[in-house]
């Protein structure tokens, strides 16, 4: 495997502009797509061809639920349908497992149409309440002694906050078996949020053709807090949904990208989300309200933050309890990229995931963003004929040189970063900002040009 890496990484950042030309052979795509699909947790960079990896490795803690049956034995005797009221009353911390690094990669899960994916793994945790894991750990459940009692309970079940009838099917039809007295809500949201550092993830829609040059212009700003909330309670006890995730989003991060000089944002005619799956623009319940107004076409949320408005409260309401409005906050979107390998196409830790790829013309700025929907901005990187433009054009456009730049194949082969992290203005080399090369990197023809 051959690769380049800045061993010390780059300073932590939350805003960036990245321009990269890349070309992926068909055989690499087929090899990545052929990775076996394991049972359980997916391996790192599963079926992905990395183009860039960075960020200190993060871990998630496995949570092992403690189930109890609030009405009787946890395991019912054979043939006995109940009463059963299973609830998670707590979690035990299990093993820690590795999370994917920050990456730009070609996701080959769909072998026929690989797409670019961007993984932005932070090291920070969100806070929130009733995000998930809502249970009534103190519910009790008497069994009926008469049909009159069942009738009384049926009436009681219509009183909000009282509880609900639980029923089990028999050969002769449904039979009410017991009534669950709701007594409170156990909110395990903080356990869930504290188990996993937050991430932003975008899987694009536009397919990447093999054996052709492509250009990616990517920019994002995850310094903006993510604040989401569920729908307000209604008079019925079934909970509610938003029509669109944006209705439950008061603050969100942003991403812009262009592939092959085409800006992508919002959704396709088939309602595929260019900034999905955790897009602010996502319809959560469009079937109930077709044509609902969408959200910001460039808005992105963390996975956990997106789930709050997406799932609403329908899925979390237990019986007829009055549910508080779920709320989620995340305010520290920064990528932990210092003292962590910055690797092209991947760093040492992910060397097994490296496939044969061709690359050219990497430029990366941090601390600034660029709207890729503006043609003038794209012309700083790709000319109207689909060829790369000299880096000085982008420098002029953005007002300064990039922090990381690999320009000319000779620089790639040496790993010579001529950006400001790698070189002083007098062109003396800054060793900490230079790439370390492993393996052979060779010049490649044809030169980058869209469609070639």
């Amino acid at each position, binding site marked *: *495997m*051959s*690769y380049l890496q800045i061993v010390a990484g780059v300073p932590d950042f939350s805003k960036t502009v990245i321009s990269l*030309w890349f*070309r992926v052979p068909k055989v*690499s795509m087929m090899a990545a797509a052929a990775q076996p699909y394991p049972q359980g947790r997916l391996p790192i960079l599963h079926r992905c061809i990395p183009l860039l990896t960075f960020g200190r490795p993060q871990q998630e803690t496995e949570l092992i639920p403690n189930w109890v049956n609030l009405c009787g034995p946890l395991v019912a005797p054979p043939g006995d349908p109940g009463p059963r009221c299973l609830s998670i009353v707590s979690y035990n911390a299990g093993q820690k497992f590795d999370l994917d690094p920050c990456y730009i990669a070609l996701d080959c899960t769909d072998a026929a149409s690989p797409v670019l994916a961007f993984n932005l793994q932070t090291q920070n945790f969100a806070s929130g309440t009733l995000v998930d894991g809502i249970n009534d750990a103190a519910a009790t459940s008497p069994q009926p002694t008469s049909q009159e009692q069942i009738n009384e309970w049926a009436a009681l079940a219509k009183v909000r906050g009282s509880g609900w009838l639980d029923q089990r099917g028999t050969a002769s039809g449904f039979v009410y078996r017991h009534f669950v007295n709701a007594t409170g809500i156990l909110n395990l949201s903080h356990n869930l949020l504290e188990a996993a550092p937050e991430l932003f993830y975008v899987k694009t829609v536009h397919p990447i053709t093999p054996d052709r*040059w492509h250009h990616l212009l990517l920019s994002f700003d995850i310094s903006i807090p993510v604040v989401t909330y569920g729908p307000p309670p209604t008079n019925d006890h079934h909970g509610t949904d938003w029509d669109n995730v944006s209705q439950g989003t008061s603050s969100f991060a942003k991403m812009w990208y262009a592939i092959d000089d085409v800006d992508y944002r919002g959704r396709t005619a088939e309602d595929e989300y260019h900034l999905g799956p955790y897009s602010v623009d996502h319809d959560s319940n469009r079937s109930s309200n077709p044509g609902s107004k969408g959200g910001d076409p460039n808005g992105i949320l963390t996975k956990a933050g997106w789930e709050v408005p997406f799932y609403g409260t329908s899925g979390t309401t237990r019986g007829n309890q009055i549910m508080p409005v779920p709320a989620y906050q995340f305010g520290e979107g920064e990528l932990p990229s210092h003292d962590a390998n910055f690797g*092209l*196409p991947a760093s040492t830790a992910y060397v097994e995931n*490296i*496939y*044969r*790829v*061709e*690359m*050219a*013309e990497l430029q990366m700025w941090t601390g600034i963003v660029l709207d890729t929907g503006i043609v003038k901005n794209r012309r700083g990187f790709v000319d109207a004929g689909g060829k*790369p433009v*000299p*880096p*000085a*054009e982008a*420098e*002029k456009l953005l007002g300064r*040189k990039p922090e990381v730049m690999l*320009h*000319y*194949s*000779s620089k*790639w*082969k*040496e790993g010579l970063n001529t950006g400001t992290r790698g070189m002083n*203005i007098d062109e003396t080399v800054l060793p900490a900002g230079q790439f370390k*090369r*492993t*393996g*052979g*990197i*060779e*010049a*490649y*023809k*044809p*030169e*980058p040009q869209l469609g070639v």
Partner: protein
Amino acid sequence: MVTNRGLALDLLTRVRNIHWNVGLAVEFGNKAEDAPKPAVLTGVTKSSKE
């Protein structure tokens, strides 16, 4: 001494002149023989900048 602006313009002019005379692209391999070995300079015309 040059200012940032002067240097940028200078680079721009020079790069425009030489842009298509140098290789831009490289290939990363995953063959076993790619394990550490010196880079092979093939098909690259060195520019005046270098």
